[in-house]
């Protein structure tokens, strides 16, 4: 065998080893979700059989429809969608002008504002739960969508402001200057020129905020006491504590709640790291 062919063979076998390794690692990461899928597909009775089986004996695709009758799943999803959408909208209303402004202007207090954003990015509702509970009872917002929306939007403000301002910064100032020479006001320049150009950043922020609210658990678990106000993360955790758990429906519902979010998350993957590390890596 000549050296060139040998080199080629080595390269190919290296690629093969990498592919196999990659597949095994993928399997490990997906395992809990594959296992959920298998459980979701089983008839209810076979989930409490001893010994259990790896795969369903009969595949019950209908479980993905039946979950809406068997569990209050539709109600949970409704609350989750309301909370997440409103969080997303409020988040954008607050972070868009702020992100734009700090990208484009110098003002007294800028350093203080940046520091406030950076420091609060690390604050977690989990640690501040008692303070949040106390504030919400003072404001009479316990067990309300509004309370959850305000908390979710506020704790995601830092990420949103940060990622948006880095997007606005990447738009050349000259484009805006041309617009303002043409007579556009500061606000018009912002809405007509900068917003459309920063669209990828806006979509990223919107999706990230939406997902954060979608998955939020501890605040809703503490504040939302009536089932009709609970998002699915809370509803699900309470269902598993019941005496008789219908695991197949529970996991069918869980998968319905996970899949759209995973797809959305993958779509903004490129910008996540820079937003979450406040630009200190990328």
């Amino acid at each position, binding site marked *: 065998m000549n050296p060139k062919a040998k080199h080629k063979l080595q390269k190919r076998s290296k*690629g093969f080893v*990498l*592919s196999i390794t*990659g597949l095994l*690692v*993928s*399997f490990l*990461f997906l*395992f809990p979700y594959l*296992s*959920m899928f298998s459980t979701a597909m089983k008839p209810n009775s076979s*989930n409490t059989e*001893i010994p259990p089986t790896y795969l369903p004996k009969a595949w019950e695709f209908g479980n993905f429809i039946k979950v809406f009758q068997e569990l209050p799943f539709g109600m949970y999803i409704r609350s989750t969608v309301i909370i997440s959408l409103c969080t997303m909208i409020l988040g954008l*209303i*607050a972070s868009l*002008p*702020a992100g734009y*402004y700090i990208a*484009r*202007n*110098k*003002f*007294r207090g*800028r*350093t203080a504002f*940046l520091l406030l954003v*950076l420091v*609060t990015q690390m604050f*977690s509702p989990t640690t*501040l*739960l*008692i*303070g*949040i509970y106390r*504030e919400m*009872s003072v404001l009479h917002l316990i067990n309300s969508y509004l309370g959850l929306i305000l908390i979710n939007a*506020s*704790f995601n403000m830092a990420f949103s402001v940060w990622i948006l301002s*880095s997007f606005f910064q990447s738009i050349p*100032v000259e484009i805006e200057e041309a617009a303002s*020479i043409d*007579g556009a*006001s*500061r606000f018009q*320049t912002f809405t007509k020129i900068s917003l459309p150009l920063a669209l990828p950043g806006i979509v990223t922020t919107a999706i990230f905020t939406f*997902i954060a609210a*979608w*998955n939020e*658990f*501890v605040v809703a678990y503490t504040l939302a006491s009536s089932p009709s106000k609970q998002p699915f*993360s809370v509803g699900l955790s309470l269902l598993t504590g019941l005496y008789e758990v219908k695991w197949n429906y529970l996991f069918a519902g*869980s998968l319905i709640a*996970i899949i759209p*979010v*995973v797809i959305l998350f993958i779509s903004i993957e490129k910008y996540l*790291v820079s937003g979450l*590390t406040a*630009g*200190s*890596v990328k």
Partner: protein
Amino acid sequence: MNILRGRFLLSKKVGANDTPLQALPWLGTALFLIVGFVLWPTVELFLMSFRRVDISGLLKGWAGLDNYRSLFDNSDIKGTLFRTAIWLVVVVAATMAISLPLAQLLNAKFIGQKFLRYSVIVPWAASLVITSTSWKWILNGYYGVFNLVLQDLHIIKEPVDLLSDPKTGFMVLLVVGIAVSLPFTTYVLLAGLQSIPHDIMEAARVDGAGPWKGYWAIVFPLLRPAFLVAAVINSVYVFNSFPIIWVMTQGGPGYETDTTTTFAYKVAFRDQDIGQSASLAVGNFMVIFVLIMIFLKLSKWRDLDKK
């Protein structure tokens, strides 16, 4: 006239100094939310830790340091602090150690690389409550697939219930904690790897010292900033982690798998001792605050400030 207005606006662009009052319409809403719903709860929490709160949540005046005293007298706090330290150190260290080769794999070129990247992202995107519920079901002592695998491999004869025993239960929590922390740190390291120029990576590979030495001598030093940032932010996430422990063991049996985060929750909302819980939460906040200071030191936020 238009030109004049244009000039006027230009002077308002980068370089000019606005007064805080001019900045307010743009920053107001964000400022309102951060101050109103992030800082206010923080202040409330600190105040609460010095207050006397009765079992129904009513305020009964000031308590001085009584809440802190009762926290130190709590017989379960010592074990909880010890476990929290283990939880933080083991999960973060293991996550970082596994992330390094994993990021390298995600950065390599091979068929199926995209699929691997998407698979690694899933536990990051999915609700932690759901992921933890799935692990709990997998490990179920009667019906779980984990026992099935071990029995088929003839490692065990009888099914085991790992979560009911505090020792094995806590170990399981550590493993799940590591598994769900990996995506974030791996993606930060991947971003770091991608920012290293290609010829430097190539030089490290073909360097006479061999790929292993080349990695530690050339690649890792360039990766260090990303590594440190990932480690610090991950520490904050891990320290605050609530759903994994809550869903899988609720910190039980008793308080034997609690960390300070779940312990504070139980003291407040189960034992109804809001004051004592607030004093522990203040302690938790202090730990986070130290981590934030380290992050600020590492991050390049001043670069943005200068622009």
